[in-house]
Structures are given as C-alpha cells and as structure tokens.
C-alpha cells in the first residue's frame, strides 16, 4: 500500500472535508478513535473500512480513500454509532455525507445501492409517492437480478400489499419542483 504523504494533500481537499463535516455539524477532531462505533455497527462485518477508520481518513485529510470506501454505502443508517458515541460525533450522518459526495463525484463502490436509490426516487418524482412495483421492475432490470423477490409476488398480490397502479399526489408539479430545487441546491455545495 502506498505511503500517504500528509503534507502533499491539497488545501482544497481540507476545505472539502471541512465543508462536508460542517454540513452536518460534525466536529471531526472530537473523535478520539475509541472504536465504539465500529463495535456496535450491525453492518461492520461487510465493510472494507470500519466506521472509525472512515472518520480517521477524514481526520487525516485522506478524502479519496473515504470516498472510494464501500462502508458509507453499506451503512444502514441505524444511528447506533451516533447514539453511543462518547463525543457525540454524528457518525451515521457523516457516512451519509460521504456517500452523497461520492455519488455526486460519480464514485459508486456499490452499484446496486446506487441503483436502488436512483429507482426509489424515480416513481417519487413521477407520482409524488413511492411505488414498489415500478422500483422493483427498474431495479431488477438494471441490476441484472431480474427475478429478485419474485417469489413473494403471489402472497403480496393476495394480501393486496402490492399496488399495480401507483398512488399519486394531486400536486405532482410541486413535488417535482421540490426535487429539482434540491438537486440544484446540492450541486451548489
């Protein structure tokens, strides 16, 4: 593994990390690396960097390593880490912020997670509400897992748990505008 020259990191890097932390009110220096976040994380077993290490990379200015990590994508945002942190570092929120930044930079260490989010928001933008059938269809096709969850279909239909036709918001225009506003706002940062 290549040595990390901490002195050669660009100032822009530090600014980006600071902005990232500031956006959720996190103070990175407050983390003293006790590891309690990792210890309680239900998903840590599947992560490449432990939650603690994601923060550590940010503390050191190693933003690229954090952005390329799978960990923020695997994070289930269960907030166990945040709730137990002795220094009140919002770790879950930090993971999310890293994931958002990676997403904007086109870095998608777990494509399926990216697709899920993408196709979750698709019916939302169209109808103002979630529509599981739309989501599942698009997701299954894009991820190549065409038959995922297929076996549950009969039971779902029987219990009318799956709507063939999506529920819609009356003022769909308002929701679409809202979502576009948010996209613009996020890009500004």
């Amino acid at each position, binding site marked *: *593994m290549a*040595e*990390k*020259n*901490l*002195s*050669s990191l660009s100032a822009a890097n530090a600014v980006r990390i600071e902005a990232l932390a500031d956006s959720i009110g996190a*103070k990175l*220096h*407050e983390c*003293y*690396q006790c590891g309690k976040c990792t210890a309680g994380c239900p998903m840590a077993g599947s992560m490449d*960097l432990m939650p*603690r*290490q994601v923060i*550590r*990379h940010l*503390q*050191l200015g*190693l933003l690229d390593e954090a952005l390329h990590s799978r960990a923020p994508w695997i994070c289930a945002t269960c907030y166990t880490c945040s709730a137990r942190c002795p220094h009140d570092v919002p770790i879950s929120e930090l993971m999310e912020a890293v994931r958002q930044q990676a997403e904007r930079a086109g870095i998608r260490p777990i494509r399926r997670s990216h697709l899920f989010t993408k196709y979750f928001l698709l019916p939302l933008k169209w109808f103002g509400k979630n529509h599981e059938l739309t989501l599942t269809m698009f997701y299954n096709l894009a991820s190549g897992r065409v038959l995922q969850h297929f076996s549950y279909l009969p039971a779902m239909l029987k219990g009318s748990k799956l709507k063939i036709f999506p529920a819609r918001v009356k003022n769909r225009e308002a929701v679409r505008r809202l979502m576009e506003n948010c996209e613009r706002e996020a890009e500004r940062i």
Partner: protein
Amino acid sequence: MARTGVIICHCGSNIASVVDVERVALAAGQMPGVTYAATNKYTCSISGQDMIKQAIAEHELDRLVIASCTPRMHETTFRKMLTKTSINPYMLEIANIREQCSWVHTDKEKATEKAIDLVHMAVAKVLKDQPLFTSSIPVHKKCLVVGGGIAGIQAALDVAEAGYEVTLVEREPSIGGKMVMLDKTFPTLDCSACISTPKMAEAGAHPNIRLMTSCEISAVTGYIGNFQVTIRQKPRYVNHDTCTGCGLCEEKCPTKVTNLFDQSLSKRKAIYKLFPQAVPAKPVIDSEHCTMLKSGKCGLCSKLCPLGCINFEDQEDFITETFGAIVLATGYDLIDWAKAYPEYGGGKYANVISGLQFERLVNASGPTEGHIQRPGDGAEPKTVVIVKCVGSRDPAKAKAYCSRACCMYAAKHAHQILEKIEGSKVYVFYIDVRTPGKGYEEFYDKTRADGAVYIRGRVSKIYEEGGKLICKGEDTLIGKQVAVEADMVVLETAMEPAHGSTETAATAGVSADKDGWLTEAHPKLRPVETQTAGVYLCGTAQGPKDIPDTVAQASAAAAKVLGLLAKDELETSPMISVVDAPKCSGCGFCEQVCPVKAISMVDVPSMYNGKRVTRTVAQVNSGLCSGCGACSAACRTGCIDLLGFTNKQILEEVDALWQE
C-alpha cells in the same frame, strides 16, 4: 533463681472452650523457673491487669508469661502495665494460644497439649530475657532541603512557615530549577515564571530560610534528629555579602559562553546570573570559561566593580551543620536523546529540538522573546511535528517507564504553536494519550479542536530533504504508512534522575531504583519517607511527575518533617542489635546486610600479646537500627545479637518443645 509468673487467659470462651486452661496452668506450674501459675477470665481487662499486678507483688515475680491472644494484639498493653510494677516491661513473653491454637484447632486434647507447648516455649524464652530500657535521642529542630526546584522551594517554605529553620541547598547559582525555564503550565496555561518567581523570592527573603546556592552536600553522618551534614560551597568568585547585583560586570564581560539555561539556544557571559529573576540576584563567575581564571588575562569585571566584590582567589569551602531532618528534592534531567536516536538525526538537524528547548523558544524571556523560530535559520515553522515518548516507554533504547508529564506538555506545545503561528499545522505522533489529572482530558480535547492532528504511531525516521524534515510513521488506526514534511520537529523526551542525584542520595543513606529514581519507604503507604528514618523525598527525585503532583508531594514531605521537628526527643526501641566487641572479627558482613546502614566498622584500641594494637569492629548506631536481626544471622562469630530475640532466647524456645 528466676521467679516467673504464668497467666493463662480464658478470653471468655474464646480460648477456654477449646483449651483446658486449668490443665495448662497446672502444667505451667511444674515448669522450671515458674513460681506462680494461674488462669484469668479476661486478662487484658482492668481487673485482669490488677490481678497480675497483685500476683507480682505477692509472689515477688521477676518475669511474666501471658498465654492469651496474639502478641500483636496486647503486647503493648501488658508492657505498659508492667511499667507500673517492679518488673521491667521487656521481661514479658506472650504465648499465642488463641489465634494460633484455640481458633484453629478443634480437638480439645491436642489443642491443650499444643497450648502447654506454647507456654513452655514462652517460659523457656522468658528465662533468658533481660531488662531492656528505651532511650531517647534529642531532635535537632532544623531541616535541610537538598535541591532548589519547585519541590525544594515548596518544602522549605512549608517548614519555614511552621517556624522551623531551613537550609535550602542548590548546586546552581540560583534556585528555581526546571519550572522557571518553562513558558506556560498545563492545563491552565498560566505563566510558569509568574507563579514560580514569587515563590523563589519568598524563599529568598524568608527569615527562617537560609539559601545556599552553588552548594552541594558532600557527607552525611548521624541519624534521625541528628544528622551532621557537610556542605560544599563551590567558589563563586563574587562576594555575595557586598555585591548589590548591579549587573555592570555581566554587561562588560567580553567572554561569551553557551547558555545552558536557554538549552544552548543563546549565549551568556562568563560572569553571569543564571537568568534575569535569579535568586539570589547576584552573579557568579564560570571558572571553566573565565579567561582571567584560565590564563590570568582580562580581569575587566574586577576593575569595573564599584564595590570590589570580585575575588579571583575564591576557594571552595566546607560547612558542617546539624539537622534533624533532610528532604531530598534533587529533581530530573532530560535524557540525551541524540545519543539514543540516530534515526531522528542524532542531533545533526538544528530544527529537531527537545521539549525543553521549545519551552525556551516560546518563552517571552527566552532567546527569541517568545517568537517560535527555527534554531536553524530563524524562520517561523509552518508545519511542526511533535513526537511523544522519545526515550520513554522504550526499554530497548532508553527508559522503560512513562515520563508522565509529556502527554500534557505535548498538547500544550501543539496549542501554543497553533495559537502563535497563523496557518500552522501541528502533527502529534503518539502511542497513547494519558491525561489523568484535573482538566487534563479537557485540555487534550481542546488541543484537537485547535487543529492538532494526532497520529497514533511512533515515528520511525526523521531526515532532511529539500529543506524539510521528513517524518515517517504509521497511522496505526488505519494501518497505513504516513509521512509529514515538517519545518521543525519537537521531541518530547524522557525524564531521568538529575545527574548526580543518586550519589547525593546515597550520601544520605537513600537508595535508588534501577533507573536511579530515589526509593520511597513504601510505594503506597509511605510515599515521602525513605528507608533511612528522618530522610524524606519529594518531587521528580522520586520519579517522573508534573508540577501539581510535585508540589503536593513537597508539602507532604514538609508535613512529615514537621511531625518530627515538633518532638523534643525521640524514643528508640531497645530491641536492637548489640555487638560483643571482643568477639568481633571485623569481617564487615553485618555492615553489608544492614538495610538501614546502622552498622559501621570502627577502629578500637586493644591489647594483643601484651602489645597495643588497633582492631576493627562493628558498631551499631542505636538511632538507626530497626531491629530486623539480619546482622545477627549473618555474623560468623556470633558476636552480634538482637536484644529481645537473642540467639539464646530463640534456641531455648526450640529446645523447649516436645521434651519429655
């Protein structure tokens, strides 16, 4: 013929329910030398004691055996009781038939037999007892404090304030020690000089304190309450009685010398005050560098001094005084890291400095007037690396122990750099961060908030490349190698005992551990006492510590001194070793094994074949002997014995048993 009285205690039913006390008394009555034997329900009670007193008078007893609970319980009670009778308090033996018999055995027959045996042993021993008398030694109400750092100053002030005379000996030309070199103190960041110089001045002006600077102790004899101490006054070449400290000599002196007070970061003159606020505020001449003293040329100071205080003929002087108590506050030095760490440049990079050098750099009265500048070129460093545990926790290269104060002053250094140099970056390489003190963890938190980047891992190598100091380490938290290009590196080096401190302590009979830190009498319960009664220690002489702990320990030592000086006389135990001088061969084994240095070999006049000769024999200092008996067991001629536990007494005990 001895007239022994034997009392068998029932201790209610504690003894009597298991041991047939009447049978024991009956058996005791038959033992040789026993005049009187009886039982008593509660021997330690007032009525029990009265009964004994009565028996002593009635039967003209001259010694006593009490079979009861452990002697650790009531030996003192019964000895006290005997002072009111015709029997010497030391003509008493106690047979432990409760804790070591009735309470641990259930078979009544066997327990009774054992009790008879134990009484038999005590009777055999008491027959060899001799009257012993406590003696008292006067206490000389004066205290010597060795070392004029903050520990010594604090101890001296506390003792002086209580009304006793103190002599404060310091080998440097001024008191103040390491604390006056420091800039600010953690975690409160108050200025070190601002809080220590008033204490120095107070010590300098206190009517009960006699300051002896440029002095060292060269010999200590005597014992608690009566130490004769020889103090060597090094030549100062300046008459401090007449000198006003005007400073003209220092100003005009043409010889410039490396200033060690500034950690070699500046120059001073050959006639100099240690630092501006020195106490006493008078100069001395550095004989190693003064051209007049070296080659007889110059003498400018002498010509200029308006009061004629310069005396190039000054000689060292020895002063002997008596003190009742001694406090050792000899302090610490920093290790010579350059020798131990060639991988950090071994001293060849001017911009790799020690923590104490940094203190001088950041100190407003230091060589740069408080501007943090690289010693190499005077430039302001923008990126600074601080390396902790340099020499500490490193048994392979230097010291195995933790130096305790470094974590905190490293945080302070980081804070000061970030505060004073705008846009600066500070990286602190550490192994652990230890902040056990009031407000310490909070200070560490604040330093990280200031922007200090803490990296867990030791620096492996520091080298210069392109004007930068490249520091290579691992961030063990992410498991990757890291490198920082620094403008300056501060090494937080380990403390070690001040040079010469173990020798000084040995002079006073105090030992040191393998690292040279002075050994306290007990690590938990007697932290400021030493194995030599009347000698106390405090501050970093005992081990690495920070200022609050040092000052607390100094006051603790002072409290111990005051407890001693408040007494007019000390009673000494009579159960000490005695030498049968005519039998002594002078081999000196006893002297080697004595843990308190109470035995010395002395020459005595003697006659051999009608001729006058001088013989070397052992002599016991009754003020020092603690009565362990190691000497007696080591003596090959059997001439040294322990009163109260003589060879004869113990052998009688051994012989007494299981005799038909």
